[in-house]
């Protein structure tokens, strides 16, 4: 696929689209360039630099100061960074965020793949059922969380009481041990359709002849799934895991809608912690936290991209 492409051009590699048109580009590229092309992209680049890159640099700068978000400041070197590693509240938010992201990634992908398999099978009323399954995609995560918040704290306990299931009789959201589970459930509700779509695209790329051949050879359904479907859609699985995990690390609105970070600080995500830098007077400190968070996500991204390259998955 990339055989016609010079090695240097592969540096954008993993994320760059199929390099199909190289021959034409080189043919034209020898001459002068129409300045119009610069007009098409330079304003965008300028805005991007100003609104995305500049704040990132400013943030790194202030993470080395004791700026409170207002008033005077001076350089304090790396002491913010050192303090972060000694701050149990911050460390706890990292533990929660990563645990949550792992749980949500697994749950979302299991559910999404199941739904995709179901929608791809020979079921009746496929269009209608599909429409229903994708509804969460168009709804605000915050409002959905508010609705679920009532379900978790009132409806579920009331039902549990009626049927005598005492462990569920009190609100899950008020329970330090189980509040995270409620957040995972709503995250799955909200995020599964997006992942399902990617899986559906993957399943539809599998030619049905493959199954017919396997069926003739007497492979059972589970066997077919494990030995045929799963390997054939592996690329889509990897993409879903990467996109999902990165997204779930930044979870914010569902937590705001369900627990607000509570009870206590049991469900406080790193993002929430960082945002508290607005009001808490520890702007610089939370900026240091943000930089650490960035480095961590970057490392994860690089590892994931390496994995993709090794697998030869084309994005």
């Amino acid at each position, binding site marked *: 696929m990339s055989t016609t492409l010079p090695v240097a051009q592969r540096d954008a590699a993993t*994320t760059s*689209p199929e390099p199909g048109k190289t021959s034409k580009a080189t043919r034209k590229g020898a001459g002068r*360039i129409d300045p*119009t*092309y610069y007009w098409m*992209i330079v304003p*965008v*680049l300028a805005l*991007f630099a100003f*609104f995305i890159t500049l*704040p*990132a640099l*400013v943030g790194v700068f202030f993470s080395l100061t004791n700026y409170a978000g207002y008033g005077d400041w001076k350089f304090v070197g790396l002491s913010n960074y050192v303090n972060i590693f000694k701050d149990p509240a911050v460390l706890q938010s990292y533990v929660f965020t990563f645990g949550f992201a792992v749980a949500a990634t697994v749950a979302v992908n*299991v559910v999404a*793949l*199941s739904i995709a*398999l*179901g929608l791809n*099978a*020979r079921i*009746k009323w496929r269009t209608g*059922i*599909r*429409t*229903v*399954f994708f*509804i969460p995609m*168009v709804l*605000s*995560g*915050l*409002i959905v969380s508010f*609705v679920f918040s*009532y*379900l978790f704290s*009132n*409806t579920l306990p*009331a039902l549990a009481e*009626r049927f005598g299931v005492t462990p569920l009789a009190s609100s899950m959201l008020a329970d330090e041990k189980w509040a995270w589970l409620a957040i995972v459930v709503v995250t*799955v509700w909200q995020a599964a359709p997006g992942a399902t*779509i990617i899986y559906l695209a993957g399943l539809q790329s599998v030619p049905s002849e493959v199954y*017919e051949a396997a*069926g003739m050879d*007497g492979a059972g*359904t*589970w066997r*077919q*799934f494990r030995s045929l*479907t799963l390997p054939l859609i592996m690329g889509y699985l990897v993409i879903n895991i990467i996109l999902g995990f990165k997204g779930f*690390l930044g979870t*914010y609105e569902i937590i705001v809608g369900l627990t607000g970070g509570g009870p206590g600080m049991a469900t406080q995500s790193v*993002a929430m912690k*960082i*945002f508290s*830098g*607005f009001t808490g007077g520890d702007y610089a400190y939370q900026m240091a936290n*943000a930089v650490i968070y*960035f480095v961590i996500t*970057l490392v994860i*991204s690089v590892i994931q991209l390496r994995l993709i390259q090794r697998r030869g998955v084309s994005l």
Partner: protein
Amino acid sequence: MTATISTGSPRGSGPSASTRPSAGSSRGSRPSAGSAGSPGKIRRSSREGYKVNWGLTVLMLLASLTIIVPLYFTVAMALKSADQIGTGTGLGWPNPMHWENLAEAFVATNFPAHFLSTALVTVFSVLGSLATSSLAAYAIARNWNRKFFRGSFVYLLSAMFIPFPVIILPLIKQTALLGLDNPAGVVFLHVLGGISFNTLLYIAFVRAIPAELEESARMDGATTWQVFRKIILPLLAPMNATVGIFAFLGSWNDFLLPQMMIADPALQTLPVVQMLFQGEFNTDYSLAFASYLMAMAPTLVVYILSQRWVLSGVMRGAVK
């Protein structure tokens, strides 16, 4: 619930599903009978037959209740009076229905103003996303052999590695300094935040457009702008739909940026307004749910009316 669905997965795995004895044993016999008989026969029956897998259909219907029940619940709650909500589960249908809750919430939240604000942010975000990312993608794809454009592409993509929480604190300060602590500022950031992904989607598409199409127009003296507008843009229509849908949903439902950026509560967007009902002592659930319902309804209705178009657009993004 997760378990219920996942047990369905192996069964749904392929066209010759339902070999499992647990469900649809009557039809489970088909593949095995086929393997004994002539192979040509199976192919025809599985192609044209489209024998409905009823066991799986029922399972999928049950699973779809996980979506329908919360929505039903929202509607039911929105139509209840405070007394009807009481201490019950909230799952019963209200009798009588209190439609006046909707009118009350309409007034209490100043719905029209926030609807307008949300709609304006969304419209401009969608238009901005379409314009900037299609132009950028065109310029990059047609000049891929030039360092500057390739570099620009990598640079824009780098945003995908910067999580929003990392830049948000300085960003808010910066936009406030510029007087962009309003819906207009949110539009800027919605456009720029989505630009990496959107450009990526477009580039693949632009590359598939043969350059010969443009060259003949250029021979006739068309400028690059004209080529883009008259030839490329119409050809991009399917991708415009895809990018537009993503931009619309992302912008309409966004909570983080409007909440943090828009200083004037009167200009706030619909999702953020729902925070109003989260006060410690606020237990007016009928009003709250009526308001939630009204905030959810627009996208829900549009989606259901145009689901075929929406889903095919979104699928296009996934296939890429």
